Protein backbone atom coordinates (compact mmCIF):
# COMPACT_ATOMS: atom_id res chain seq x y z
CA UNK A 1 0.00 0.00 0.00
CA UNK A 2 2.77 2.42 1.05
CA UNK A 3 4.80 1.52 -2.02
CA UNK A 4 1.78 2.17 -4.21
CA UNK A 5 1.32 5.60 -2.61
CA UNK A 6 4.98 6.49 -3.16
CA UNK A 7 4.82 5.35 -6.79
CA UNK A 8 1.65 7.41 -7.22
CA UNK A 9 3.44 10.46 -5.85
CA UNK A 10 6.48 9.86 -8.05
CA UNK A 11 4.21 9.51 -11.05
CA UNK A 12 2.59 12.81 -10.08
CA UNK A 13 6.06 14.43 -9.89
CA UNK A 14 6.90 13.14 -13.37
CA UNK A 15 3.82 14.94 -14.59
CA UNK A 16 5.17 18.39 -13.77
CA UNK A 17 5.16 20.43 -16.94
CA UNK A 18 7.61 23.03 -15.71
CA UNK A 19 11.12 22.76 -17.12
CA UNK A 20 13.35 22.27 -14.12
CA UNK A 21 17.14 22.29 -13.97
CA UNK A 22 18.98 19.16 -12.88
CA UNK A 23 19.51 20.67 -9.42
CA UNK A 24 15.84 21.60 -9.07
CA UNK A 25 14.85 18.09 -10.05
CA UNK A 26 17.29 16.66 -7.52
CA UNK A 27 15.73 18.78 -4.78
CA UNK A 28 12.25 17.78 -5.92
CA UNK A 29 13.24 14.13 -5.78
CA UNK A 30 14.10 14.61 -2.11
CA UNK A 31 17.84 14.03 -2.30
CA UNK A 32 18.52 17.15 -0.18
CA UNK A 33 16.00 16.11 2.44
CA UNK A 34 12.26 16.10 2.89
CA UNK A 35 11.91 19.69 4.04
CA UNK A 36 13.71 21.21 1.06
CA UNK A 37 11.70 18.82 -1.10
CA UNK A 38 8.48 20.27 0.35
CA UNK A 39 9.78 23.80 -0.24
CA UNK A 40 10.50 22.99 -3.88
CA UNK A 41 7.25 21.06 -4.32
CA UNK A 42 5.22 23.98 -2.99
CA UNK A 43 6.93 26.47 -5.29
CA UNK A 44 6.67 24.18 -8.33
CA UNK A 45 2.99 23.42 -7.70
CA UNK A 46 2.41 27.15 -7.31
CA UNK A 47 4.11 27.76 -10.67
CA UNK A 48 2.22 24.91 -12.31
CA UNK A 49 -1.07 26.49 -11.26
CA UNK A 50 -0.11 29.45 -13.45
CA UNK A 51 1.47 27.46 -16.31
CA UNK A 52 4.92 28.84 -15.43
CA UNK A 53 7.52 27.29 -17.71
CA UNK A 54 10.45 27.63 -15.33
CA UNK A 55 11.79 29.10 -12.13
CA UNK A 56 13.84 32.30 -12.36
CA UNK A 57 16.43 33.74 -9.95
CA UNK A 58 15.34 36.40 -7.46
CA UNK A 59 17.34 39.64 -7.57
CA UNK A 60 16.24 41.66 -4.56
CA UNK A 61 15.66 41.53 -0.81
CA UNK A 62 12.31 40.03 0.24
CA UNK A 63 9.40 41.79 1.88
CA UNK A 64 7.05 39.49 3.79
CA UNK A 65 3.51 40.21 4.92
CA UNK A 66 3.21 38.19 8.09
CA UNK A 67 4.34 40.07 11.20
CA UNK A 68 1.79 38.73 13.65
CA UNK A 69 2.60 36.10 16.24
CA UNK A 70 -1.02 35.04 16.56
CA UNK A 71 -1.64 31.58 18.01
CA UNK A 72 -4.05 30.69 15.27
CA UNK A 73 -1.32 30.83 12.62
CA UNK A 74 0.20 27.60 13.87
CA UNK A 75 0.58 26.05 10.38
CA UNK A 76 2.96 28.86 9.44
CA UNK A 77 4.95 28.63 12.66
CA UNK A 78 5.25 24.85 12.29
CA UNK A 79 6.59 25.34 8.79
CA UNK A 80 9.13 27.89 10.06
CA UNK A 81 10.26 25.51 12.81
CA UNK A 82 10.83 22.81 10.24
CA UNK A 83 12.79 25.19 8.01
CA UNK A 84 14.94 26.41 10.90
CA UNK A 85 15.61 22.85 12.10
CA UNK A 86 16.97 22.07 8.65
CA UNK A 87 19.16 25.17 8.64
CA UNK A 88 17.19 26.86 5.86
CA UNK A 89 16.92 30.65 5.71
CA UNK A 90 16.05 33.49 3.37
CA UNK A 91 18.69 34.13 0.71
CA UNK A 92 18.74 37.84 1.68
CA UNK A 93 17.73 39.78 4.82
CA UNK A 94 14.03 40.65 4.66
CA UNK A 95 11.67 43.35 5.84
CA UNK A 96 8.20 42.52 7.13
CA UNK A 97 4.87 44.23 7.80
CA UNK A 98 4.31 46.35 10.94
CA UNK A 99 3.99 44.83 14.38
CA UNK A 100 0.35 44.20 15.38
CA UNK A 101 0.31 46.26 18.55
CA UNK A 102 1.98 49.21 20.26
CA UNK A 103 0.27 49.21 23.63
CA UNK A 104 2.42 52.03 25.00
CA UNK A 105 1.20 54.50 22.39
CA UNK A 106 -2.12 53.09 21.20
CA UNK A 107 -3.46 51.72 24.43
CA UNK A 108 -6.90 50.20 23.94
CA UNK A 109 -7.44 49.77 27.70
CA UNK A 110 -6.41 47.08 30.16
CA UNK A 111 -8.75 44.30 29.04
CA UNK A 112 -8.35 44.86 25.29
CA UNK A 113 -4.59 45.13 25.79
CA UNK A 114 -4.55 41.82 27.64
CA UNK A 115 -6.67 40.30 24.88
CA UNK A 116 -4.19 41.52 22.28
CA UNK A 117 -1.28 39.99 24.16
CA UNK A 118 -3.23 36.73 24.43
CA UNK A 119 -4.14 36.67 20.74
CA UNK A 120 -0.53 37.43 19.80
CA UNK A 121 1.07 35.40 22.57
CA UNK A 122 3.62 33.99 20.13
CA UNK A 123 4.84 37.44 19.07
CA UNK A 124 8.25 37.24 20.77
CA UNK A 125 8.74 33.62 19.70
CA UNK A 126 7.75 34.48 16.15
CA UNK A 127 10.15 37.42 16.00
CA UNK A 128 12.93 35.10 17.20
CA UNK A 129 12.05 32.68 14.41
CA UNK A 130 12.09 35.55 11.90
CA UNK A 131 15.57 36.60 13.08
CA UNK A 132 16.77 33.05 12.56
CA UNK A 133 15.26 32.93 9.07
CA UNK A 134 16.71 36.30 8.03
CA UNK A 135 14.87 39.37 9.40
CA UNK A 136 16.88 42.48 8.48
CA UNK A 137 16.83 44.12 11.92
CA UNK A 138 14.52 45.02 14.80
CA UNK A 139 13.28 48.12 12.93
CA UNK A 140 12.38 46.23 9.75
CA UNK A 141 8.63 46.30 10.50
CA UNK A 142 6.76 48.41 7.95
CA UNK A 143 4.39 47.81 5.05
CA UNK A 144 6.15 50.71 3.30
CA UNK A 145 9.57 49.02 3.29
CA UNK A 146 10.54 51.02 0.19
CA UNK A 147 10.59 54.35 2.05
CA UNK A 148 14.12 55.81 1.93
CA UNK A 149 14.55 55.54 5.72
CA UNK A 150 13.72 51.80 5.64
CA UNK A 151 15.72 51.15 2.50
CA UNK A 152 14.31 47.97 0.97
CA UNK A 153 14.21 49.56 -2.48
CA UNK A 154 14.48 47.08 -5.33
CA UNK A 155 16.10 48.08 -8.62
CA UNK A 156 14.08 48.62 -11.77
CA UNK A 157 13.43 45.28 -13.45
CA UNK A 158 14.57 43.22 -10.44
CA UNK A 159 12.66 39.96 -10.02
CA UNK A 160 11.25 39.63 -6.52
CA UNK A 161 8.93 37.35 -4.56
CA UNK A 162 7.21 39.90 -2.32
CA UNK A 163 3.95 39.74 -0.44
CA UNK A 164 1.95 42.61 1.20
CA UNK A 165 -0.42 43.86 -1.45
CA UNK A 166 0.41 47.56 -1.01
CA UNK A 167 4.16 46.91 -1.22
CA UNK A 168 3.77 44.63 -4.25
CA UNK A 169 1.76 47.19 -6.20
CA UNK A 170 4.24 49.96 -5.31
CA UNK A 171 7.30 47.88 -6.25
CA UNK A 172 5.77 46.94 -9.60
CA UNK A 173 4.21 50.26 -10.52
CA UNK A 174 6.39 53.02 -9.08
CA UNK A 175 9.77 51.28 -8.87
CA UNK A 176 9.37 49.12 -11.98
CA UNK A 177 10.50 45.95 -10.18
CA UNK A 178 8.76 42.66 -10.97
CA UNK A 179 6.87 40.63 -8.42
CA UNK A 180 3.67 38.69 -8.35
CA UNK A 181 1.14 39.16 -5.56
CA UNK A 182 2.52 36.33 -3.48
CA UNK A 183 0.79 35.28 -0.33
CA UNK A 184 2.37 34.62 3.04
CA UNK A 185 4.13 31.29 3.13
CA UNK A 186 4.91 31.01 -0.55
CA UNK A 187 6.81 34.35 -0.33
CA UNK A 188 9.20 32.89 2.23
CA UNK A 189 9.59 29.56 0.41
CA UNK A 190 10.53 31.30 -2.86
CA UNK A 191 13.11 33.41 -1.05
CA UNK A 192 14.60 30.33 0.61
CA UNK A 193 15.07 28.78 -2.83
CA UNK A 194 16.10 32.21 -4.18
CA UNK A 195 13.88 31.38 -7.14
CA UNK A 196 10.30 32.10 -8.12
CA UNK A 197 8.03 30.77 -10.88
CA UNK A 198 8.07 32.88 -14.04
CA UNK A 199 4.49 33.96 -14.68
CA UNK A 200 2.05 36.87 -14.40
CA UNK A 201 3.60 40.19 -13.46
CA UNK A 202 7.13 38.90 -14.03
CA UNK A 203 6.48 38.63 -17.75
CA UNK A 204 6.25 41.43 -20.32
CA UNK A 205 2.82 40.22 -21.44
CA UNK A 206 1.55 40.05 -17.85
CA UNK A 207 2.45 43.70 -17.37
CA UNK A 208 0.30 44.99 -20.23
CA UNK A 209 -2.90 46.81 -19.34
CA UNK A 210 -6.43 45.61 -20.10
CA UNK A 211 -8.19 48.71 -18.77
CA UNK A 212 -7.85 52.37 -19.72
CA UNK A 213 -8.85 54.52 -16.76
CA UNK A 214 -9.68 58.07 -17.79
CA UNK A 215 -9.51 60.48 -14.86
CA UNK A 216 -11.76 63.44 -15.66
CA UNK A 217 -12.30 65.00 -12.26
CA UNK A 218 -12.47 68.74 -11.66
CA UNK A 219 -9.61 68.61 -9.14
CA UNK A 220 -6.94 66.21 -7.90
CA UNK A 221 -8.86 63.14 -6.75
CA UNK A 222 -8.36 61.75 -3.30
CA UNK A 223 -5.77 58.98 -3.75
CA UNK A 224 -7.54 56.46 -1.53
CA UNK A 225 -10.94 57.03 -3.15
CA UNK A 226 -9.54 56.90 -6.67
CA UNK A 227 -7.66 53.69 -5.87
CA UNK A 228 -10.79 52.12 -4.42
CA UNK A 229 -12.83 52.98 -7.53
CA UNK A 230 -10.14 51.50 -9.80
CA UNK A 231 -9.69 48.35 -7.68
CA UNK A 232 -13.42 47.65 -7.51
CA UNK A 233 -13.76 48.07 -11.28
CA UNK A 234 -10.73 46.21 -12.68
CA UNK A 235 -10.34 43.70 -9.78
CA UNK A 236 -7.06 41.93 -10.64
CA UNK A 237 -6.38 43.40 -14.07
CA UNK A 238 -3.65 45.93 -14.89
CA UNK A 239 -5.06 49.45 -15.37
CA UNK A 240 -3.45 52.19 -17.45
CA UNK A 241 -4.44 55.48 -15.83
CA UNK A 242 -4.67 58.56 -18.04
CA UNK A 243 -5.35 62.12 -16.94
CA UNK A 244 -3.79 61.81 -13.51
CA UNK A 245 -0.52 63.39 -14.62
CA UNK A 246 -2.46 66.64 -15.08
CA UNK A 247 -2.74 66.77 -11.28
CA UNK A 248 0.43 64.98 -10.22
CA UNK A 249 2.88 66.29 -12.80
CA UNK A 250 5.42 64.19 -14.60
CA UNK A 251 8.01 63.65 -11.86
CA UNK A 252 8.11 60.91 -9.27
CA UNK A 253 8.96 63.28 -6.45
CA UNK A 254 8.26 62.52 -2.80
CA UNK A 255 4.64 63.84 -2.62
CA UNK A 256 3.76 62.05 -5.87
CA UNK A 257 5.28 58.77 -4.63
CA UNK A 258 3.26 59.13 -1.42
CA UNK A 259 0.09 59.70 -3.46
CA UNK A 260 0.79 56.64 -5.61
CA UNK A 261 1.53 54.59 -2.46
CA UNK A 262 -1.91 55.37 -1.05
CA UNK A 263 -3.73 54.97 -4.36
CA UNK A 264 -2.04 51.61 -4.94
CA UNK A 265 -2.90 50.31 -1.48
CA UNK A 266 -6.57 51.08 -2.12
CA UNK A 267 -6.42 49.46 -5.61
CA UNK A 268 -4.90 46.35 -4.08
CA UNK A 269 -7.21 45.99 -1.10
CA UNK A 270 -10.48 47.03 -2.73
CA UNK A 271 -9.57 44.86 -5.69
CA UNK A 272 -6.50 42.77 -6.37
CA UNK A 273 -4.40 45.12 -8.48
CA UNK A 274 -0.71 44.21 -8.47
CA UNK A 275 0.45 46.74 -11.05
CA UNK A 276 -0.85 49.97 -12.53
CA UNK A 277 0.62 52.35 -15.07
CA UNK A 278 0.13 56.13 -14.88
CA UNK A 279 0.52 57.88 -18.20
CA UNK A 280 3.65 60.06 -18.41
CA UNK A 281 4.59 59.24 -14.84
CA UNK A 282 5.37 55.63 -13.87
CA UNK A 283 8.49 54.09 -15.42
CA UNK A 284 6.96 51.68 -17.92
CA UNK A 285 4.22 54.12 -18.96
CA UNK A 286 6.84 56.81 -19.60
CA UNK A 287 8.74 54.45 -21.88
CA UNK A 288 6.02 52.56 -23.68
CA UNK A 289 2.98 54.84 -23.35
CA UNK A 290 -0.38 53.52 -24.53
CA UNK A 291 1.28 50.65 -26.40
CA UNK A 292 1.00 48.92 -23.01
CA UNK A 293 -2.75 48.60 -23.60
CA UNK A 294 -3.81 45.26 -25.09
CA UNK A 295 -6.31 45.21 -27.98
CA UNK A 296 -9.90 45.21 -26.81
CA UNK A 297 -9.12 46.92 -23.51
CA UNK A 298 -11.98 48.18 -21.36
CA UNK A 299 -12.62 51.83 -20.55
CA UNK A 300 -13.62 53.36 -17.24
CA UNK A 301 -14.20 57.07 -16.88
CA UNK A 302 -13.79 58.47 -13.40
CA UNK A 303 -15.32 61.90 -12.88
CA UNK A 304 -16.56 63.72 -9.79
CA UNK A 305 -19.95 61.97 -9.94
CA UNK A 306 -18.33 58.53 -10.11
CA UNK A 307 -16.16 59.25 -7.09
CA UNK A 308 -19.24 60.50 -5.21
CA UNK A 309 -21.04 57.26 -6.12
CA UNK A 310 -18.18 55.11 -4.86
CA UNK A 311 -17.90 57.13 -1.65
CA UNK A 312 -21.64 56.76 -1.01
CA UNK A 313 -21.45 52.99 -1.54
CA UNK A 314 -19.34 52.35 1.57
CA UNK A 315 -21.40 50.82 4.37
CA UNK A 316 -21.09 52.27 7.87
CA UNK A 317 -20.25 49.44 10.26
CA UNK A 318 -20.40 51.40 13.49
CA UNK A 319 -23.00 50.04 15.85
CA UNK A 320 -24.73 53.43 15.79
CA UNK A 321 -24.19 55.67 12.82
CA UNK A 322 -24.41 58.77 15.02
CA UNK A 323 -21.82 57.64 17.57
CA UNK A 324 -19.05 60.06 18.42
CA UNK A 325 -15.66 58.77 17.24
CA UNK A 326 -13.05 57.71 19.78
CA UNK A 327 -9.85 57.89 17.77
CA UNK A 328 -8.38 58.42 14.32
CA UNK A 329 -5.84 56.30 12.49
CA UNK A 330 -3.88 57.94 9.70
CA UNK A 331 -1.23 55.91 7.90
CA UNK A 332 -2.40 52.63 6.39
CA UNK A 333 -0.14 52.08 4.51
CA UNK A 334 2.53 53.68 6.68
CA UNK A 335 3.10 57.39 6.17
CA UNK A 336 6.20 58.82 4.55
CA UNK A 337 8.18 61.45 6.45
CA UNK A 338 6.79 64.13 4.15
CA UNK A 339 3.22 62.99 4.80
CA UNK A 340 3.74 63.22 8.55
CA UNK A 341 5.02 66.76 8.16
CA UNK A 342 2.04 67.65 5.97
CA UNK A 343 -0.43 66.22 8.48
CA UNK A 344 1.29 68.06 11.32
CA UNK A 345 0.92 71.36 9.47
CA UNK A 346 -2.66 70.60 8.46
CA UNK A 347 -3.65 69.70 12.03
CA UNK A 348 -2.00 72.84 13.45
CA UNK A 349 -3.64 75.06 10.84
CA UNK A 350 -7.06 73.49 11.47
CA UNK A 351 -6.67 74.04 15.22
CA UNK A 352 -5.63 77.64 14.66
CA UNK A 353 -8.69 78.27 12.51
CA UNK A 354 -10.93 76.71 15.15
CA UNK A 355 -9.29 78.68 17.95
CA UNK A 356 -8.29 75.49 19.76
CA UNK A 357 -5.03 74.26 21.19
CA UNK A 358 -5.73 70.53 21.20
CA UNK A 359 -7.55 68.06 19.00
CA UNK A 360 -10.75 66.64 20.38
CA UNK A 361 -9.83 63.17 19.18
CA UNK A 362 -6.62 61.22 19.68
CA UNK A 363 -4.87 61.02 16.31
CA UNK A 364 -2.40 58.23 15.61
CA UNK A 365 0.01 58.80 12.75
CA UNK A 366 1.37 55.40 11.73
CA UNK A 367 4.76 55.06 10.13
CA UNK A 368 7.85 52.90 9.90
CA UNK A 369 10.09 52.65 12.99
CA UNK A 370 13.00 54.07 10.95
CA UNK A 371 10.91 57.07 9.85
CA UNK A 372 9.73 57.69 13.40
CA UNK A 373 13.32 57.42 14.66
CA UNK A 374 14.40 60.01 12.09
CA UNK A 375 11.61 62.39 13.17
CA UNK A 376 12.35 61.83 16.84
CA UNK A 377 15.80 63.28 16.33
CA UNK A 378 13.95 66.60 16.19
CA UNK A 379 12.51 66.83 19.70
CA UNK A 380 10.62 70.01 18.87
CA UNK A 381 8.59 68.30 16.14
CA UNK A 382 7.57 65.45 18.44
CA UNK A 383 6.66 67.87 21.22
CA UNK A 384 4.53 69.92 18.83
CA UNK A 385 2.64 66.80 17.81
CA UNK A 386 2.11 65.64 21.37
CA UNK A 387 0.99 69.11 22.45
CA UNK A 388 -1.91 69.03 20.01
CA UNK A 389 -2.90 65.43 20.85
CA UNK A 390 -1.31 63.50 17.98
CA UNK A 391 1.11 60.62 18.37
CA UNK A 392 3.49 58.71 16.15
CA UNK A 393 3.25 54.93 16.23
CA UNK A 394 4.79 52.08 14.22
CA UNK A 395 1.70 49.93 14.72
CA UNK A 396 -0.33 48.26 11.98
CA UNK A 397 -3.76 49.83 12.57
CA UNK A 398 -5.40 46.98 10.67
CA UNK A 399 -3.92 44.40 13.01
CA UNK A 400 -4.68 46.56 16.04
CA UNK A 401 -8.35 46.68 15.04
CA UNK A 402 -8.48 42.95 14.34
CA UNK A 403 -8.52 42.51 18.12
CA UNK A 404 -12.17 41.58 18.74
CA UNK A 405 -12.31 44.00 21.70
CA UNK A 406 -10.83 46.86 19.66
CA UNK A 407 -13.37 46.29 16.91
CA UNK A 408 -15.94 47.92 19.18
CA UNK A 409 -14.00 51.18 19.12
CA UNK A 410 -15.52 53.93 17.03
CA UNK A 411 -12.67 54.74 14.66
CA UNK A 412 -12.29 57.21 11.82
CA UNK A 413 -9.64 56.97 9.15
CA UNK A 414 -8.56 58.23 5.74
CA UNK A 415 -7.44 54.72 4.72
CA UNK A 416 -9.55 52.71 2.35
CA UNK A 417 -7.58 49.59 3.19
CA UNK A 418 -8.34 50.02 6.89
CA UNK A 419 -12.01 50.58 6.05
CA UNK A 420 -12.03 47.31 4.12
CA UNK A 421 -10.61 45.22 6.96
CA UNK A 422 -12.17 46.80 10.03
CA UNK A 423 -15.20 48.70 11.24
CA UNK A 424 -13.34 52.02 10.86
CA UNK A 425 -15.24 54.64 8.91
CA UNK A 426 -13.56 56.25 5.91
CA UNK A 427 -13.44 60.02 5.43
CA UNK A 428 -11.69 62.25 2.95
CA UNK A 429 -8.74 64.17 4.39
CA UNK A 430 -10.49 67.54 4.74
CA UNK A 431 -13.48 65.96 6.48
CA UNK A 432 -11.23 63.93 8.73
CA UNK A 433 -9.43 67.13 9.76
CA UNK A 434 -12.73 68.70 10.83
CA UNK A 435 -13.68 65.56 12.75
CA UNK A 436 -10.46 65.29 14.72
CA UNK A 437 -10.61 68.99 15.61
CA UNK A 438 -14.26 68.96 16.70
CA UNK A 439 -14.47 65.36 17.91
CA UNK A 440 -17.75 65.03 16.03
CA UNK A 441 -18.71 63.58 12.69
CA UNK A 442 -21.52 65.96 11.81
Amino acid sequence: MLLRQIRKKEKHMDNYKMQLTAEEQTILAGRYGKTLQKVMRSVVLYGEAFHAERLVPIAGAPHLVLSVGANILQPYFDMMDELIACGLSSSRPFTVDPRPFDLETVNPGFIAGRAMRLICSQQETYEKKMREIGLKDSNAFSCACYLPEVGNIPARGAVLAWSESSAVVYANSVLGARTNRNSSGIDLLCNILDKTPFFGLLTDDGRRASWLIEVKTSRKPNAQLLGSAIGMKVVEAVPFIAGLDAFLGKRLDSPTCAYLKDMGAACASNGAVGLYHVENLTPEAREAGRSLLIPGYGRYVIDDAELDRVMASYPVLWKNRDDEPQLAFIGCPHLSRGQIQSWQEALENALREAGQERLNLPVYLCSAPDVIAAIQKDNAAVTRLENIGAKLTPVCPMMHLSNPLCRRQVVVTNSNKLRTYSTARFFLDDDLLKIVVSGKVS
Partner: protein
Amino acid sequence: MGKVFQGRAVLPGSCRGEALVSHAGLNILASFQRSVVLRRRKAVCADQNNPDLYEHVMTGKILCLPVTIGSTSGGLVLETAVQMGIAPLAMLFSEHIDSLAASGVILADVWIGKRIVVVDNLGAEFLNTVCTGQNVAVDENGKVEII
Protein backbone atom coordinates in the same frame (compact mmCIF):
# COMPACT_ATOMS: atom_id res chain seq x y z
CA MET B 1 -28.50 14.79 -15.52
CA GLY B 2 -27.87 18.37 -14.50
CA LYS B 3 -25.85 20.97 -16.32
CA VAL B 4 -22.16 20.04 -16.58
CA PHE B 5 -19.11 22.31 -16.74
CA GLN B 6 -15.54 21.25 -17.38
CA GLY B 7 -12.71 23.05 -15.61
CA ARG B 8 -9.11 22.35 -14.66
CA ALA B 9 -8.53 20.35 -11.50
CA VAL B 10 -5.91 22.44 -9.65
CA LEU B 11 -6.15 20.18 -6.61
CA PRO B 12 -8.08 17.14 -7.83
CA GLY B 13 -10.70 15.40 -5.76
CA SER B 14 -14.33 14.41 -5.80
CA CYS B 15 -17.03 15.82 -3.54
CA ARG B 16 -20.67 16.79 -3.46
CA GLY B 17 -22.29 19.61 -1.54
CA GLU B 18 -24.31 22.78 -1.40
CA ALA B 19 -23.22 25.70 -3.55
CA LEU B 20 -22.46 29.12 -2.10
CA VAL B 21 -22.04 31.63 -4.91
CA SER B 22 -20.11 34.89 -4.93
CA HIS B 23 -20.34 36.94 -8.10
CA ALA B 24 -17.72 39.38 -6.84
CA GLY B 25 -14.13 38.49 -5.96
CA LEU B 26 -13.82 36.83 -2.57
CA ASN B 27 -11.67 38.87 -0.20
CA ILE B 28 -10.19 36.00 1.83
CA LEU B 29 -8.81 38.13 4.66
CA ALA B 30 -11.96 40.20 5.06
CA SER B 31 -14.17 37.11 4.78
CA PHE B 32 -12.38 34.66 7.09
CA GLN B 33 -10.36 36.80 9.50
CA ARG B 34 -13.01 37.22 12.19
CA SER B 35 -13.96 33.52 12.27
CA VAL B 36 -10.30 32.49 12.37
CA VAL B 37 -9.34 34.97 15.11
CA LEU B 38 -12.37 34.05 17.22
CA ARG B 39 -11.75 30.32 16.58
CA ARG B 40 -15.32 29.83 15.49
CA ARG B 41 -16.45 26.34 14.57
CA LYS B 42 -17.89 27.64 11.34
CA ALA B 43 -16.56 30.41 9.14
CA VAL B 44 -19.11 33.17 8.63
CA CYS B 45 -18.27 35.66 5.89
CA ALA B 46 -17.46 39.06 7.40
CA ASP B 47 -16.72 40.91 4.16
CA GLN B 48 -18.93 43.99 4.12
CA ASN B 49 -18.16 44.55 0.43
CA ASN B 50 -19.55 41.19 -0.66
CA PRO B 51 -23.37 41.20 -0.49
CA ASP B 52 -23.58 37.65 -1.92
CA LEU B 53 -21.65 36.12 0.96
CA TYR B 54 -21.83 38.61 3.86
CA GLU B 55 -22.91 36.76 7.02
CA HIS B 56 -23.26 33.44 5.15
CA VAL B 57 -21.67 30.29 6.57
CA MET B 58 -18.83 29.23 4.23
CA THR B 59 -17.69 26.08 6.06
CA GLY B 60 -18.42 22.85 4.20
CA LYS B 61 -19.93 24.65 1.21
CA ILE B 62 -18.92 24.39 -2.42
CA LEU B 63 -17.75 27.95 -2.87
CA CYS B 64 -18.30 29.18 -6.44
CA LEU B 65 -16.49 32.40 -7.25
CA PRO B 66 -14.61 34.29 -9.97
CA VAL B 67 -11.30 34.86 -8.11
CA THR B 68 -10.09 35.84 -4.67
CA ILE B 69 -8.96 39.41 -4.02
CA GLY B 70 -7.51 41.60 -1.28
CA SER B 71 -4.42 41.55 0.86
CA THR B 72 -1.70 38.98 0.52
CA SER B 73 -2.09 37.45 3.95
CA GLY B 74 -5.21 35.89 2.42
CA GLY B 75 -3.43 32.69 1.42
CA LEU B 76 -2.24 32.01 4.94
CA VAL B 77 -5.69 32.80 6.34
CA LEU B 78 -7.15 30.26 3.91
CA GLU B 79 -4.49 27.69 4.85
CA THR B 80 -5.33 28.28 8.52
CA ALA B 81 -9.05 27.87 7.82
CA VAL B 82 -8.27 24.54 6.13
CA GLN B 83 -6.19 23.46 9.12
CA MET B 84 -8.98 24.48 11.53
CA GLY B 85 -11.54 22.54 9.51
CA ILE B 86 -13.67 25.60 8.79
CA ALA B 87 -12.80 26.04 5.09
CA PRO B 88 -15.21 25.42 2.24
CA LEU B 89 -15.42 21.83 1.00
CA ALA B 90 -14.32 22.94 -2.46
CA MET B 91 -13.51 26.14 -4.32
CA LEU B 92 -14.75 26.39 -7.89
CA PHE B 93 -13.36 29.34 -9.85
CA SER B 94 -15.01 30.60 -13.02
CA GLU B 95 -11.72 32.32 -13.93
CA HIS B 96 -8.10 31.25 -13.62
CA ILE B 97 -7.12 30.71 -10.00
CA ASP B 98 -5.32 33.70 -8.45
CA SER B 99 -2.04 33.70 -6.53
CA LEU B 100 -3.56 34.11 -3.04
CA ALA B 101 -5.94 31.18 -3.26
CA ALA B 102 -3.35 29.01 -5.03
CA SER B 103 -0.79 29.65 -2.31
CA GLY B 104 -3.23 28.90 0.51
CA VAL B 105 -4.59 25.63 -0.84
CA ILE B 106 -1.21 24.34 -2.06
CA LEU B 107 0.52 25.03 1.28
CA ALA B 108 -2.32 23.32 3.14
CA ASP B 109 -1.94 20.32 0.84
CA VAL B 110 1.87 20.08 1.01
CA TRP B 111 2.62 21.17 4.60
CA ILE B 112 -0.48 20.09 6.54
CA GLY B 113 -1.66 17.22 4.34
CA LYS B 114 -5.20 18.61 4.18
CA ARG B 115 -6.77 19.18 0.82
CA ILE B 116 -9.80 21.06 -0.35
CA VAL B 117 -10.88 20.34 -3.89
CA VAL B 118 -10.04 23.20 -6.26
CA VAL B 119 -11.18 23.58 -9.86
CA ASP B 120 -10.63 26.68 -11.99
CA ASN B 121 -11.38 27.96 -15.52
CA LEU B 122 -15.05 26.90 -15.32
CA GLY B 123 -16.10 29.93 -17.37
CA ALA B 124 -18.45 32.86 -16.81
CA GLU B 125 -21.50 30.79 -17.75
CA PHE B 126 -20.86 28.51 -14.78
CA LEU B 127 -21.13 31.44 -12.38
CA ASN B 128 -24.20 32.74 -14.21
CA THR B 129 -25.86 29.33 -13.92
CA VAL B 130 -25.08 28.04 -10.45
CA CYS B 131 -27.13 29.42 -7.56
CA THR B 132 -26.59 29.42 -3.82
CA GLY B 133 -28.31 26.41 -2.27
CA GLN B 134 -28.09 24.15 -5.33
CA ASN B 135 -26.37 20.78 -5.05
CA VAL B 136 -23.10 20.48 -6.91
CA ALA B 137 -20.93 17.42 -7.63
CA VAL B 138 -17.25 17.65 -8.52
CA ASP B 139 -15.13 14.82 -9.92
CA GLU B 140 -11.37 14.13 -9.99
CA ASN B 141 -11.01 15.47 -13.53
CA GLY B 142 -12.46 18.89 -12.84
CA LYS B 143 -15.97 18.10 -14.12
CA VAL B 144 -18.65 20.00 -12.20
CA GLU B 145 -22.31 19.04 -12.32
CA ILE B 146 -25.09 21.25 -11.02
CA ILE B 147 -27.67 18.73 -9.86
